[in-house]
């Protein structure tokens, strides 16, 4: 039960951080989410993001910041085995699901739907 509560609270808080960035700095959602992805990557590199996922579950892996963490994680997994070149071969390994799903469903959406204006 508490897993759901933590997911709600932490997820909500990360969104609030995004909202504050958008409204106070007056930047676009695209800029805001880029910032969060980079922050996620940095926290991932520092080993701080995975513990957050352990506590908050979806509250940490659903926000876009987890994308940055996932990319770092993938890069490090391969770099562990093959060194520097592993960064390139591993980056998308874990993040594949998000990008593939977005492209595939986005394309299917374009096949089926018309913009409503």
């Amino acid at each position: 039960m508490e897993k759901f509560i933590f997911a709600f609270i932490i997820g909500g808080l990360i969104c609030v951080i995004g909202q504050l960035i958008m409204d106070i700095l007056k930047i676009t959602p695209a800029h805001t989410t880029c910032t969060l992805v980079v922050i996620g990557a940095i926290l991932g590199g520092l080993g701080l993001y995975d513990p957050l996922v352990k506590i908050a579950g979806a509250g940490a892996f659903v926000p876009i910041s987890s994308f940055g963490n996932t990319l770092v994680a993938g890069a490090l997994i391969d770099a562990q085995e093959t060194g520097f070149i592993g960064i390139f071969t591993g980056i998308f390994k874990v993040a594949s699901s998000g990008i593939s799903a977005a492209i595939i469903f986005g394309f299917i959406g374009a096949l089926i739907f018309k913009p409503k204006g």
Partner: protein
Amino acid sequence: MSNMKKKKLTPIQLQYDELVKSIEPKRPILKNCIKAFFIGGIICTIGQVLHTIFITYFNFTEKTAVGPTLVVLIFVAALFTGLGIYDHLGQWAGAGTAVPITGFANSIASAAIEHKSEGYVLGVAGNMFRLAGAIIVYGVFSAFVVATIKITIKWLGAM
């Protein structure tokens, strides 16, 4: 960003800038944050429910259930985008829908659907990443920098 611009403005422009700031309706920051918290929290909770379902009924582990969870959330976001619901939700919830992975999916789906009139190659496919491309580029590049620094530190430490 708005402070950088200020340095290049003439005195009259600065004066006008002050006038504009005093008149323009302020963004309802507190209200926006509450809405973002609420909707963002709900989306993440739904994610948690899906995650639990994948573990309980589909033999995934805590780690391997993350991917499928995101796939389902992305599917729903793309569907809502196509149905014309997501933009209204986004106007209300702000970062609450933009920050979760659903925002990423919406940016791709909305661009793909919008540019259908230009054909499926140059229109749909060519424009799909109009908004989301930045996230992927910055995600990958920052991951590259972070990973490089990390393995360099490890390598130096092992020396």
